């Protein structure tokens, strides 16, 4: 079975969350930025459930 660097995956996900939140904050007032950032953040939540939440158990 293939192995993955879960720490690195988690780190990238964490950075993506920070970036998406910054993007949303910077674009405040531009609906096209705020709402699309919300969608990105929802997808990031799913990545967290798939990877980040499991990391402490591995």
């Amino acid at each position, binding site marked *: 079975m293939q192995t993955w660097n879960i720490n690195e995956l988690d780190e990238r996900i964490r950075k993506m969350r920070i970036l998406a939140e910054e993007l949303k904050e910077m674009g405040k007032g531009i609906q096209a930025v705020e709402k699309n950032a919300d969608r990105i953040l*929802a997808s990031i939540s799913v990545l967290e*459930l798939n990877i980040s939440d499991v990391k402490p158990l*591995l």
Partner: protein
Amino acid sequence: MDDRAYWNPILETLPREKLFDLQLRKFKNILHWSYAHSPFYRRLYKEAGFEPGDVRTLDDVRLVPKVEKSMLRDTQQRDPFPYGDILAVDLEDVTVFRQTSGTTGTPVYHACTWRDWEIYTECWAYILYAQGYRATDRVFVPFGYNIFVAFWGGHYAAEKIGCEVIPGGVLDTAARVLKMQELKCTAMMATPTYVLGMAETARNKLGMDVARDLQVRKITCAGEPGASVPATKKRMEEAWGAKVYDHIGATEWGAWSYECQAQPGGLHVNDAFFLIEIEDLETGKPITEPGKEGKMIITALDQQTKPCIRFDSKDVIRWAGRTCECGRTFRLIDGGVIGRADDITKVKGVLLAPTAIEEVVRSIRELGDEYEVAVSKKGEIDDILLKVEVRPGCEGEQSRILTRLKDQLRLKTNLGYRIEVHPFGSLPKYELKAKRFKDLRKKGA
């Protein structure tokens, strides 16, 4: 097993003890979230003298008060409209409205933020990927999409996997069959009743053999237990020349269980996103051993918008107690949903599950796909009436067929039945959830 067989090989092969650790952590999180954000849950727990901090182990989960569907209907009378004060997010953050089918009463409205809807569809992606859906598939959904949640999750999940998805909404059955043929669809999602009905329509109205003339090679079923009833599954697989897989879900918490390509005679529980408990039907005590039927209590571990914590589903299931050759560590339940706690009833002192009747009827080739069962009282004695149809061309053998049917029913259910034969095609056909079992002894039935 190749890693590519899994949607998420990390979660799906996580050792069981670690899955339990993950479940406990998530359970505590959703409990604290609901207590902090949902007036309904806060009220429920305060009235019971319970606090989220009381849960320290998975055994402690049983301390948490359960929720029933009637409570969801009641809370809908409160603000915010239309969900009630179970809602644990701001109303303006809700982006998805769905509702239950209304099979068991007034529909329950379900809300999702986009985050929760992403999770809802992610759970479906686990299902479809485990059943072999890939980016090369062209998936047809022969269903009138509407306010009921059915197949919306499957549609979005198939897109996420990369499949082409064809919404077969307002077309009639014959038009759907022809569209599937024209587009060379390779997969389909539908209720078992409709899967059988489509094959029959294709045969009778279009002169087509769907196994030969269509390219559908996998079918995902929902809404009814048929795909876990061996005789019904066999009928569908033979009619379509396709693998038929079951899955179980509900509007209020999503798709929590699924059959994998190994078809192990049971369904995997998605232990990473749901906590499933089984309780004895009479004593309410927890059932952890395999083979014993009980009522499912479910928690959706990540659902924040309208949390679902220890919901009494009334679905009757049993643990399988074996591993699956697919390599998933997600636990197996044997034979899918065996019935509803409301439907599994004592007749003449014997516990009767409607799926046992279906297994017998559908195992007799000369009988049609449709049937109906009504239990009533004749004086002090329970009476079971079973309505069936005999296929055209088999009428001459009716006496032999009915003798076999009665013998098999007696053998499999330990009960005697009155049988009525109806003209072929005259019993009701269902596109959504079939209601074939009626207990007329109950008030309002």
